[in-house]
């Protein structure tokens, strides 16, 4: 049976009190027994001395010269016994042969005819003696004393003294002790209960507060001010809680810093211990593995076969491992290594870098180079072809010569434009592309460009309508933005049908200026719309090539607008035409 500390205190108190009470009662009762008997003994001794003197003075008073002392004693034994019984108790007188001469009592308690021990001692040794005997009527002291008159022992005087009073006192004392003990125990129980509760109150508070602190509530403390041991304990406990709180805050702060540091890394970081329990994971890692909410490593991370293989490899190799994998159409480069703390392996770290864009860029570069090569090859092939023709056929065929020279010149100019455009594109992607900004009136620029493009539009029978509104000044590179507008309007002319109108108008929307270029040409399909800003991408390649396009115009325009902090978007539908919206921030 488990006992609470309070019950243990109460039980201990009760046991101690009971033990003390029993010890005290034993000592008291045994003491009472001893001292009472001793008192009775003393009284009997004094009475025996008195009685001896009484017998002596009686015998002396009866002496008449004819009788000896023994004769007087024997003849008057009955009288003497009766008189002596008045002094103390029932009295018996014996002669020297232990014969009972007289007994003051008529009751017959003694049935034994044997000589009693104390009488025998008094007769034979001449000493006083007594025996305590327990009879049905109670305990008695049988006391015997020699009767000595004028140095002659005449007989023995015996007192039969009842210890009834002593026994009654002892019994009453025992009963009293028992009653007092039981009452005392009752009272003690309640007092002990109350006091132990009072004393243990701070301990219980300590227990409750400890539980709350273990659940993370570090603001709790115990209100118990005292100079006793529990007071010292609560003081130390409160200090400990403060220290723990500081340490926890420190640890949380460090953890937050670590998490912030990890989260600020673009790469995903996952750290696990030797038992595959998570040590750390940052947001990029969660994003890569599409983890929302609570993390289950086995389900979210190691369910991927490559991660499982990597884990097994690192556990085996104990050296850094790089691995490139494809997951959900993403290219991932994963680096894994062991985590050492004081040269002790505590887990493993996985750094995951999404290299999809790098791979995409590489693909684009490859495509760009392929496109450039193809674009360069085409005119070069024509130039080489016509050159070869002229070389073989000579200059005899004037028509052939003219045609060849015209084609070579045309392809050469086309090659030159292509090279210029390539250079322009490369500059926008490098440090060489520096905008020379100044504040200027965008309307003025538009009027300038529209005026210039109207000449080209006339050639293809396209009218450019320009509606100008009052616009705030913008801070930009005048020449670059002119290039943008020329490219956009050039495309509008290219993809418009003859006699189509091209509308140019503007809007001011607070912090931005919007320039709209609307044509009513063939339009661009949805599939092409996403790619029109890619270098060399041409919706209608044939048409674009015939009209002298390289496929870089919109790519260059987008780079320039992006560098001004603006945006260029295209809305289009097949056979409906196209709307290009250029948005530039206001100065």
């Amino acid at each position, binding site marked *: 049976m488990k006992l609470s500390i309070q019950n243990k205190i109460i039980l201990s108190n009760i046991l101690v009190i009971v033990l003390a009470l029993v010890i005290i009662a034993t000592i008291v009762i045994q003491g009472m027994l001893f001292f009472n008997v001793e008192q009775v003994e003393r009284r009997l001794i004094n009475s025996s001395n008195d009685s001896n*003197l009484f017998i002596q003075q009686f015998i*002396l008073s009866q002496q008449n010269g004819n009788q000896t002392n023994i004769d007087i004693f024997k003849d008057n034994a009955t009288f003497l016994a009766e008189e002596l019984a008045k002094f103390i108790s029932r009295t018996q007188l014996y002669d020297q042969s232990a014969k009972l001469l007289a007994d003051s009592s008529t009751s017959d308690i003694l049935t034994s005819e044997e000589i009693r021990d104390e009488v025998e001692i008094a007769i034979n040794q001449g000493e*006083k003696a007594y025996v305590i005997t327990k009879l049905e009527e109670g305990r008695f002291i049988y006391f015997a004393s020699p009767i000595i008159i004028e140095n002659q022992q005449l007989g023995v005087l015996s007192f039969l003294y009842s210890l009834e009073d002593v026994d009654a006192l002892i019994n009453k004392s025992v009963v009293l002790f028992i009653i007092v003990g039981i009452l005392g125990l009752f009272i003690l129980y309640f007092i002990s209960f109350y006091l132990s509760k009072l004393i243990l109150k701070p301990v219980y508070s300590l227990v409750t507060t400890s539980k709350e602190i273990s659940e993370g509530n570090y603001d709790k403390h115990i209100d118990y001010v005292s100079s006793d041991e529990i007071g010292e304990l609560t003081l130390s406990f409160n200090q400990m809680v403060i220290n723990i709180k500081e340490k926890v805050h420190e640890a949380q702060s460090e953890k937050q810093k670590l998490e912030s540091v990890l989260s600020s890394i673009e790469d995903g970081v996952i750290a696990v211990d030797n038992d595959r329990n998570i040590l750390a994971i940052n947001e990029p890692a969660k994003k890569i593995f599409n983890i929302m909410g609570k993390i289950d490593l086995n389900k979210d991370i190691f369910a991927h076969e490559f991660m499982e293989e990597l884990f097994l490899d690192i556990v085996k190799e104990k050296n850094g491992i790089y691995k490139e994998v494809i997951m959900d159409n993403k290219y991932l480069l994963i680096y894994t290594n062991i985590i050492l703390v004081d040269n002790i392996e505590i887990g493993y770290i996985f750094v995951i870098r999404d290299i999809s864009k790098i791979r995409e860029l590489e693909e684009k570069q490859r495509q760009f180079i392929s496109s450039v090569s193809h674009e360069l090859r085409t005119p070069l092939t024509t130039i080489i072809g016509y050159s070869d023709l002229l070389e073989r056929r000579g200059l005899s065929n004037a028509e052939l010569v003219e045609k060849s020279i015209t084609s070579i010149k045309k392809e050469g100019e086309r090659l030159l434009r292509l090279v210029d455009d390539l250079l322009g594109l490369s500059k926008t992607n490098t440090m060489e592309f520096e905008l020379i900004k100044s504040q200027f009136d965008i309307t003025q620029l538009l009027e300038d460009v529209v005026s210039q493009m109207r000449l080209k539009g006339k050639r293809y029978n396209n009218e450019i309508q320009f509606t100008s509104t009052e616009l705030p000044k913008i801070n930009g590179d005048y020449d670059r933005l002119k290039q943008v507008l020329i490219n956009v309007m050039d495309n509008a002319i290219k993809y418009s049908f003859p006699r189509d109108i091209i509308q140019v108008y503007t809007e001011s929307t607070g912090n931005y200026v919007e320039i709209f270029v609307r044509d009513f040409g063939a339009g661009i399909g949805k599939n092409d719309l996403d790619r029109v800003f890619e270098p060399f991408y041409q919706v209608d390649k044939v048409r674009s090539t015939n009209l002298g396009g390289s496929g870089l115009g919109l790519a260059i325009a987008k780079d320039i607008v992006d560098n001004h902090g603006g945006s260029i978007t295209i809305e289009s539908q097949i056979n409906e035409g196209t709307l290009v919206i250029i948005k530039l921030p206001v100065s």
Partner: protein
Amino acid sequence: MTKITYKVLLIIVLALFCIGCSNFFVKDNKPKTIQDNSVQNNKEMSSLSDVKDFKSITQGIIGDISSQGENIVLLREDDIDIDSQEKEEDTTYNLSLYNLKEEKIYNIISSPINLFLNRLDATEEGVYFLENKEESLFQLYWFSINDNKKVRISSTEHQVNPSFYVKSNNEVYYGTKDGKIIRANERNILRIIDIGSDYNIFQIYFFENRDLILFSAYKDQVLSLYSMNSRGEDFKEVLSNINGSFNVSKKEDKVLYTAPITDSNKSILWLFELDEEDKDIKLLEGYPQRAVFSPKGDRIAYLDKPDSNSDLLNIWVLYLENQEKKQIGSNLKITSELFWHPKENRLFFSAYESRDNKLQSQVYSLDFED
């Protein structure tokens, strides 16, 4: 560990409980011999061998002994029937003189009136005595043995207390219930000293050499010892709250008195030295009474009860030099004061004795060795 501790404690408790209920030190049915030396106090040793003789001299209550120890004055009355415990009507009180040498008794006065406190006068040719006509009313008389003449000493208007002192010139001091101490002789009242009506004079002694009256009196129910000169001057309280009678040594240098112990029925016997201030010597504690100096003043005889409830008395002798005590008489119904023989180691006293189914007061002589 805790369970074992509790079990052990419980076993101890039970064992002690069992021991407590039985006699541990005092064994039943085992005889115990008592060594006399180990249990007896030397000072209280009962010297059984010291009593040489104890005998009944004559019937009566002894009142005085002559200065040479030849005669004793005693009062004799009719015998008391034990069965009826009542005196017969027409009781006669006989004031008698008993000659110890001749062992003869001589009647002096026979009176139907109760006679008390008989004392020989200074010449020992007369006897002073008190007559008790009515309850608590006494009158002091003097009787001339030779002339056979009875003279009333006290005035009838005096409420005489049963206590008087006979001077060496045969004058007598007696006291009254209303605080008067009267000096008189057989002819007339010589001087009345009025202390105050709130004093009830109990016992008187006159120091002739010091001209000092030492008397005990009740005031507000407290018995105290007072002193003054013969003219009633220098009145002062000597001792407060005493009980019983006091006794002055023959050399008149010491006084014996008893004083009660507060909240107890016991008393202390004190010795007061007159010439040394604040020197009261505690002699003994118990139930001492009627203590009396020996003629030489070196011993004291006194009575003591065997226990508080007893109506019997033991006779003790205390030696002032070493304060040793001896019991020389046991369980006696003593009815008189103790009287030392002027020259011998002998005490006289009266005690009741049942004889022929009658309770008689007998005068005893107790001879003992020193």
